[in-house]
């Protein structure tokens, strides 16, 4: 290779990095920046208006706003405290003890995590629907009258905590598994009891991971829309995201400046939390992973294990069995709450109403496309940040990370400002394309998390070995790097697609009635009182997702089997 071609090659890759930076800034930063613009305008997006601070000041001096802010803090804090405690207990139970039924926890958590928050909340709203929901019925049977109302603070917190527990448990499972058993054994040998060891060694050593999970839970709790919308609003409880939604959808004329102000407030709080996290943690990234996979004997915690089993069962029932059961049961009821005259009529409505069918096709399209594009973006951004020599290489990655601090409803408001302020893009509003674009932006951070780790594990030497074996740069990239990325690409595509398909926060502001997605349709049905149809819609949706997962699992099994037989054949040869 001559010197000239080296220089040309690096200039070309430098241009590529700059292009990626521009794309990242436009997609991920511009919408957030446009919230500032929106805060200072008098008219809704795309309708002119003039500069003014009146919208901002009136919302910042409103008691309602600060009340909802306080409510958000209370909701997030109580959800996080409950869910973290439960998640830590479950993770410990599963990784360190011989508690019967502990094998249930991970599958249940995965399923709860896979069910979109909207549907999860919806089923709980149905369960507690007075006087006909399952729980309500049961409690009436015991107490005569139902003492519990799901549409309340308790309902919001418990339903939020159940969902958050699943996510936090899954995040904590890795650190708990990686924790070197010698840490714990050293404490026992030093004379510490099991209980002291748990609180003085295991919890503090896992401190950074736990704090990370707590902050993430808090951040997600602050941005939660569906729970407060379905369970809080009917009880007159507003949090920041529902207040933002109310300012746009619930008041005439819509107060876009106020909604933008609140959105920025939310983003700032979240950024402050992330700042606190990095400040507190500092360099205390405890490396507890040892290369040696030590044999660790699970502990027999004696009679306490039955308490563990009880908690596992309660978690399974409340997190999974009840919500799913209510949905399935509800979908066959001719009128929700009437426990006779079961019918499949709701399903035929789902399949035959043009609006419903259209919602399913739209959802599948946006899920497949946005999952793919988000993963592609994530791969490019991760590759650039890990491998490029450019000084700008970290910028796209940082842009994506910023989005973790931007809750869904805030993001969709920012996107409205961003795209409606540009004359050419204005025509996108109300089409499925703007929903698609927004979902790509919204799911890229998830895709980046899904592919980031596995790309990091692909050592440069693997490609370098291909180069020294005589492969061209293109060939080495295509034959080695691309080939090795494929499995995690597919997983990330699936994951982002599922997340995108269940998202309500983005379509709720961006979609119109002619291009609804399934979650929006189900929400509308629920809002109009057609609970049984909403349940049937959900059952079809979850059926499609489940079928997809089964196909994916089968494909993995078949591929794995083929690879194993190939290996066996090679070994035999």
């Amino acid at each position, binding site marked *: 290779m001559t010197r000239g071609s080296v220089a040309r090659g690096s200039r070309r890759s430098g241009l590529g990095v700059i292009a990626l930076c521009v794309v990242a800034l436009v997609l991920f930063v511009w919408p957030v920046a446009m919230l500032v613009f929106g805060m200072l305008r008098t008219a809704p997006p795309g309708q002119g208006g003039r500069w003014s601070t009146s919208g901002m000041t009136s919302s910042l001096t409103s008691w309602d706003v600060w009340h909802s802010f306080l409510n958000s803090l209370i909701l997030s804090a109580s959800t996080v405290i409950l869910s973290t405690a439960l998640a830590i207990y479950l993770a410990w139970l599963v990784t360190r003890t011989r508690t019967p039924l502990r094998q249930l926890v991970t599958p249940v958590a995965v399923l709860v995590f896979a069910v979109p928050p909207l549907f999860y909340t919806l089923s709980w709203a149905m369960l507690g629907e007075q006087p006909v929901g399952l729980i309500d019925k049961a409690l009436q049977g015991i107490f005569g009258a139902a003492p519990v109302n799901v549409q309340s603070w308790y309902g919001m917190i418990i339903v939020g905590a159940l969902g958050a527990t699943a996510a936090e448990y899954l995040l904590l499972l890795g650190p708990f598994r990686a924790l070197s058993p*010698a*840490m714990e*054994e*050293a404490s026992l*040998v*030093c*004379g510490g009891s099991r209980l002291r060891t748990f609180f003085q060694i295991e919890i503090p050593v896992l401190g950074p991971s736990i704090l990370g999970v707590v902050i993430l839970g808090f951040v997600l709790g602050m941005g939660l829309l569906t729970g407060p919308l379905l369970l809080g609003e009917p009880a007159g409880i507003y949090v920041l995201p529902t207040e933002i939604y109310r300012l746009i959808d619930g008041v005439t004329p819509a107060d876009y400046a106020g909604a933008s102000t609140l959105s920025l407030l939310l983003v700032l709080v979240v950024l402050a939390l992330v700042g606190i996290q990095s400040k507190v943690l500092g360099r205390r990234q*405890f490396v507890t992973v040892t290369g040696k996979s030590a*044999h660790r*004997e699970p502990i027999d915690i004696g009679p306490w294990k039955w308490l563990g089993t009880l908690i596992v069962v309660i978690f399974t029932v409340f997190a999974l069995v009840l919500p799913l059961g209510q949905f399935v049961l509800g979908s066959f009821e001719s009128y929700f709450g009437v426990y006779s005259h079961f019918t499949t009529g709701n399903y035929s409505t789902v399949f035959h109403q043009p609006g419903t069918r259209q919602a399913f096709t739209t959802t599948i399209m946006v899920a497949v496309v946005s999952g793919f594009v988000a993963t592609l973006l994530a791969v490019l951004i991760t590759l650039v940040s890990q491998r490029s020599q450019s000084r700008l290489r970290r910028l796209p990655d940082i842009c994506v990370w910023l989005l973790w601090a931007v809750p869904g409803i805030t993001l969709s408001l920012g996107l409205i400002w961003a795209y409606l302020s540009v004359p050419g893009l204005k025509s996108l509003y109300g089409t499925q394309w703007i929903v698609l674009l927004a979902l790509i932006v919204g799911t890229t951070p998830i895709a980046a998390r899904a592919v980031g780790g596995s790309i990091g594990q692909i050592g440069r030497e693997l490609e370098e070995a291909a180069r020294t074996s005589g492969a061209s740069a293109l060939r080495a990239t295509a034959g080695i790097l691309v080939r090795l990325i494929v499995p995690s690409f597919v997983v990330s595509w699936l994951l982002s697609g599922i997340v995108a398909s269940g998202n309500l926060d983005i379509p709720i502001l961006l979609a119109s009635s002619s291009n609804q997605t399934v979650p929006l349709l189900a929400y509308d049905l629920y809002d109009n009182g057609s609970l049984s149809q909403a349940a049937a819609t959900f059952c079809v949706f979850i059926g499609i997702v489940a079928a997809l997962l089964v196909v994916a699992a089968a494909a993995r099994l078949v591929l794995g089997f083929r690879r194993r037989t190939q290996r066996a054949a090679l070994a035999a040869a």
Partner: protein
Amino acid sequence: MARVEIQGLTKSYGQHEVLRNMSIEVGEGEFLTLLGPSGCGKTTTLRCVAGLERADGGEISIGATVVASAASRIFVPPNKRDIGMVFQSYALWPHMTVAGNIAYPLRMRRMRSGDIRRQVAGILETVGMSAYAQRHVTELSGGQQQRVALARAMVAKPGLLLFDEPLSNLDAKLRRDMRREIRSAHDAAGGSSIYVTHDQEEAITLSDRVVVLRGGVVQQIGTPKEIYEHPATSFVADFVGYDNILTGTVAEASDRGCAVIFGDGAGQVWAANGRSKPVTAGESVFIAVRGEHLAVEPLAAAGDPPAGSVTGLINGRIYTGQHVEYVIDAGTQRILVRMTEQEHATAQSGLGVGDKVAVRFKPDQSVVIKDDIASS
């Protein structure tokens, strides 16, 4: 100070038997090493003594207390056994300082904080880490972490110290230094120690007695000198570095030794050094001998070997820096002879590849071994 008695210990993981009826005694103040390759059961034995694992059968007592007995369903948890342990990965707690790590066993024993401070300062002095008391353990080098781990194990003056391959993560030079420190720590503490390693040099330099294990069975127990000079089985001989483990047939035996004929009539040697069971004429035995205890002399093409030696052809020569090694084919067996640079310089004449030579055995350094252990 504590005697340790291990009686008939058995342990399996599923179908895999890790310990088979293991019985070992550790005397008061003794430094005992469990030596063996990976999977021999040495770490499992140590972990059973620590109480980190439960044996399926057998009994362990520390001092006067039975700490584990499968038959009488006794199991004392590790935190009640008054022991100190150094882990292979050091297992220092990353959320505590050096002083915090070392103070932990004292805190568990509910000592007053003033006393704790004094004792921690004292032990830090002993291991030469006083300057690092307030550092976080993640900021330390491997050797420093090792010292902190040692200090933590010793600080509460337990009657028994346990070491699980503590030096395997260090480089060679540091390993030699730490070896000395561990032994002097043991001597200063006055308690008993059980040390696990797969490094024969470590076992031999550190211990009062060595137990060689294989497949969950004790192969030999003895002082380092006994193990080194009189290996009881061919496995022990191989493991403690005997270069040549040759097979032959006993021609005649007396109580001073025996004559062994090599296969293919390569020669007959006299071996006087054997501690295994008495042998009789006609039996197959091993002869173990270290390469440096053999001598090579050139032999005329048609000549017979002198008494006490075998004939062979030089197959190759390897220069290793301090030594020169000859590989010699004697019949179907291969013999390695190691000589120093000096010896080589004086004996060099006529030692080329393909030459016929006589390999002379010294009776008192040739070990006769008759394997009678089931797993060998």
